């Protein structure tokens, strides 16, 4: 299942239309979307104007890939689970937000290995296809590990008083 969220405040037709199109081309994959208030209808996705926090967290937990606008509030739950996260920032020049701060947020998040930033609908579909070709993340099963830099920092903290030279 793919879960898309564009928050609950502003519509984001560009993202949702791209995803609806992708869903039409990939009928074997279920797509669930939190759309916010919108007058548009999407025929190939299961849509919710707004989810409560619990439903939101459960849907993220079930999702194989999360697609989101680059709003901090909505992407944090996805980030914490380590699920593949595709971010498409809203653009002020297309009337998708008041300013371009989501482009900055997305750029910041792009340093994380599970995050892909898609500037347009074509990039979004490419990223989605690539994410779906990867093996699914088993949240909480401990199959995935942090990068070596952090592992080494924690390990040397644990042993630092026995090997003082290893103190981080």
């Amino acid at each position, binding site marked *: 299942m793919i879960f898309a969220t564009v928050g609950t405040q502003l519509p984001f037709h560009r993202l949702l239309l791209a995803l609806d199109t992708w869903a039409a081309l990939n009928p074997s994959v279920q797509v669930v979307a939190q759309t916010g208030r919108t007058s548009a209808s999407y025929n190939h996705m299961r849509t919710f104007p707004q989810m409560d926090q619990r439903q939101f967290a459960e849907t993220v937990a079930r999702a194989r890939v999360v697609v989101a606008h680059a709003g901090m509030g909505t992407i944090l739950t996805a980030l914490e689970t380590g699920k593949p996260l595709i971010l498409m920032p809203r653009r002020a020049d297309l009337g998708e937000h008041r300013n371009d701060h989501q482009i900055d947020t997305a750029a910041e998040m792009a340093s*994380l290995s599970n995050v892909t930033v898609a500037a347009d609908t074509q990039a979004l579909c490419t990223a989605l296809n690539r994410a779906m070709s990867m093996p699914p993340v088993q949240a*909480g099963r*401990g199959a995935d*590990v942090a990068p070596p830099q952090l*592992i080494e*920092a*924690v390990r040397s903290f*644990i042993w630092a008083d026995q090997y003082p030279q290893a103190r981080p």
Partner: protein
Amino acid sequence: MTVSIPLLSTRRPASRAAATPRPRRILAVASGGGHWVQLMRLRPAFAQAEVHYATVDRSAAEIVAPAPVHLYPDANKDTPLRLALAALTLAVIVLRVRPDVVVSTGAAGGYLAIRFARLLGARTLFIDSIANARELSVSARLSQKVADLVLSQWPAVARATGAAYRGAVL
């Protein structure tokens, strides 16, 4: 879970062999959801140590088996009664485990465990959740007053708050 008063007999001998490394006991603390997921990603760092886990979700036990798992009630600053109960439970857990090192990925329970473990002389590390990309969590800020090391997973947050940055779990 059963709550028992720690007995003197559970203490380890006071003598410490300085030359040869002795088994190192870690208490790894994380509340549910993303905090636990992030702790799991750090497991390779615990190799060669004896690890006890403390968390809020019973189903965590099968993930880390055969390592012992201690449970405490999930709580935050908006649930003061449960928070007091969590504090009490974590105090008992810390007394029973007597860790050399406490590592936590949050949230409130991690801070509480660190506070108690400091009283017993343990070395303590709090790693703030990757979700805190703009500022430290309340638990991380409180931990800065007591923990040996507090890490942020975001360089900019680390710079602004005096926390350290050693990379992120993702």
